[in-house]
């Protein structure tokens, strides 16, 4: 069942004396009920604007938003039943955690408005779910970022929204809290089964949490797919570059007659598919798909090696190629500067893009 649908959704900001800005340029999305979709993109790509339009905090320039099959465009935020956990938590400072949670339930005219007992019961219930029981009486100022994030999530969930929107939920947490909160988030979302959009610029967050990911740039969805689809077959140079850490090696070259791409006079890599001879392409090889092999392979010189204990990142220079080649090495690698090595790439894992458009040739 489709829980949320965006049809050709557009947003243009106009202000006097300045050219109009197209923040969102015609987005189509469909979310199945209970699905968690990650909206991933760099800042300014329109992902937050999209989220705010769904929530009703931003007017819609064009297109439609359907929640449970009915259009909500033009309806004020308070009539949409959409829960948002804001990036900065937006917790009400003078109220305790419990009061923050019940604040929404006490709104006048709310459909789900209940009796005092009912409210107390639901606060206790959600506190149990989101693990807030022991901080219910605390004020937001005294909480850690992870706790604040959980309270913000609980507040969005307590009204049983049709759609849950998470705006950069982990960006303000330190590394340790991020890991635990991410796991919590996944568990809670699975348990409660809310249709969820997660807006983030952090690929790790999107890859680990989302069922599907929509990668956005300049107000347009570049690719929509499962995390593996996005990672394994990026639709264009931008997606390949944005997803993956360390970032993919993007190397421009010319296709040869024998199924290779020539990067320079002496350096060539095998292509996974047929490309017309002489065509200008960009190949993308992920650092983790490259291997340092003893005998065969492309000769290269080590310019730097960062051992990261469980792995290592080697930066190589290829003869006649301006861009460095980054290779993820195993923990056993011991590389010295200026050491001569040979590097091989699995053609099946090599991505090929058109040099002009950046689109995948696959």
């Amino acid at each position: 069942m489709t829980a949320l649908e965006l049809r050709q959704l557009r947003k243009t900001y106009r202000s006097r004396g300045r050219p109009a800005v197209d923040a969102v340029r015609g987005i189509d999305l469909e979310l199945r009920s209970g699905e968690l979709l990650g909206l991933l993109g760099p800042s300014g790509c329109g992902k937050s604007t999209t989220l705010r339009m769904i929530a009703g905090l931003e007017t819609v320039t064009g297109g439609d938003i359907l929640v449970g099959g009915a259009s909500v465009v033009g309806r004020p935020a308070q009539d949409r039943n959409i829960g948002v956990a804001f990036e900065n938590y937006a917790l009400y400072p003078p109220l305790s955690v419990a009061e923050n949670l019940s604040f929404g339930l006490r709104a006048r005219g709310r459909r789900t408005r209940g009796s005092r007992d009912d409210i107390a019961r639901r606060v206790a219930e959600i506190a149990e779910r989101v693990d807030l029981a022991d901080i219910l009486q605390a004020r937001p100022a005294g909480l850690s970022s992870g706790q604040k994030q959980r309270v913000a999530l609980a507040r969005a969930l307590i009204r049983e929204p049709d759609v849950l929107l998470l705006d950069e939920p982990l960006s303000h947490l330190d590394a340790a809290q991020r890991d635990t909160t991410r796991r919590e988030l996944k568990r809670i979302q699975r348990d409660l089964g809310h249709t969820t959009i997660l807006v983030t610029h952090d690929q790790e967050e999107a890859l680990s949490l989302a069922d599907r990911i929509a990668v956005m740039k300049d107000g347009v969805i570049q690719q929509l797919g499962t995390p593996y689809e996005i990672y394994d077959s990026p639709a264009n140079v931008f997606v390949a570059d944005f997803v993956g850490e360390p970032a993919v090696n993007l190397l421009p070259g010319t296709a040869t007659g024998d199924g290779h791409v020539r990067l320079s006079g002496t350096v060539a890599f095998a292509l996974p598919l047929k490309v017309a001879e002489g065509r200008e392409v960009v190949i993308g090889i992920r650092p983790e798909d490259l291997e340092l092999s003893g005998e065969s392979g492309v000769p290269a010189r080590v310019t730097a090696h960062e051992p990261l204990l469980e792995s290592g990142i080697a930066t190589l220079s290829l003869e006649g190629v301006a861009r460095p080649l980054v290779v993820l090495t195993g923990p056993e690698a011991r590389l010295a500067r200026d050491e001569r090595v040979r590097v091989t790439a699995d053609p099946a894992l090599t991505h090929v893009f058109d040099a002009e458009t950046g689109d995948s040739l696959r």
Partner: protein
Amino acid sequence: MTGRKRLWGWLADAALILYFVFALFPIAWMAILSLKPADQLFSTYFSFTPTLDAYRTVLGDSEGIPFVRFFVNSLVVSVGAVALSLVVGLPAAYASARWRFKGSENLMFTLLSFRFAPELTVIIPLFVLYQKLGLFDTYVGMVWVLQLITLPLIVWIMRSYFADLTPELEQAALLDGYTRKQAFFRVALPLVKPGIAAVSLLAFIFAWNNFVFPLILTSSQAQTVTVGALSFLGGDRPKYNLTAAAALVSVVPPLLLALTIQRYLVRGLSFGAVKS
């Protein structure tokens, strides 16, 4: 290091005490003046038998000058002006902090210009208008004209308080099912209470201290203490002790107000900590 720090501490204290003496000297001088018997007013030594005669005269309306009335007028007019400015100014400040609309900046600037345009430039036309409209020497007229002073102050200061609040707080309330109006009254307004306290006090002091407007726009009915206290200097010979007593009495309301809301004042000045 610590010795040096301590020395600076002492110097700072000394400077503050010096300033304290300097600032309080006129008030002390007036207090002495108001307590002196009438025949010793111009003596320059400080030994005299204190008397409350001046206060009795001033508060007993005995010189034919209705000081108590002036005092009540001042209270009514100042409180009224601040109250009206809050009712009008808080929503205005909120709106201008949250939304850019056509002409909003011009509107705000116009409002601000009321503060730096000297009152004297508009006082004559205002006087004529007030005569014609029947607002001369009335409470309504005074409260209205004092908006020139209190309203810009309240709107501009409160605007920055509202701007300091993250809009997400109200947006969260909207999503929770509250209306815009409820979000303003139940979310935004309670968070700027310290600011409201601070700005109300300031506005009250400015309204209370105003001299030109009541001087020109009132005569006997709505005249305030600032002008009224001057009456003691008129007549056949200036009664400095009465003037001093009147002035000291009229310091009391702003002082009391400042003391009662002091708690909020400190919080109001250290605001901006609401952001999470």
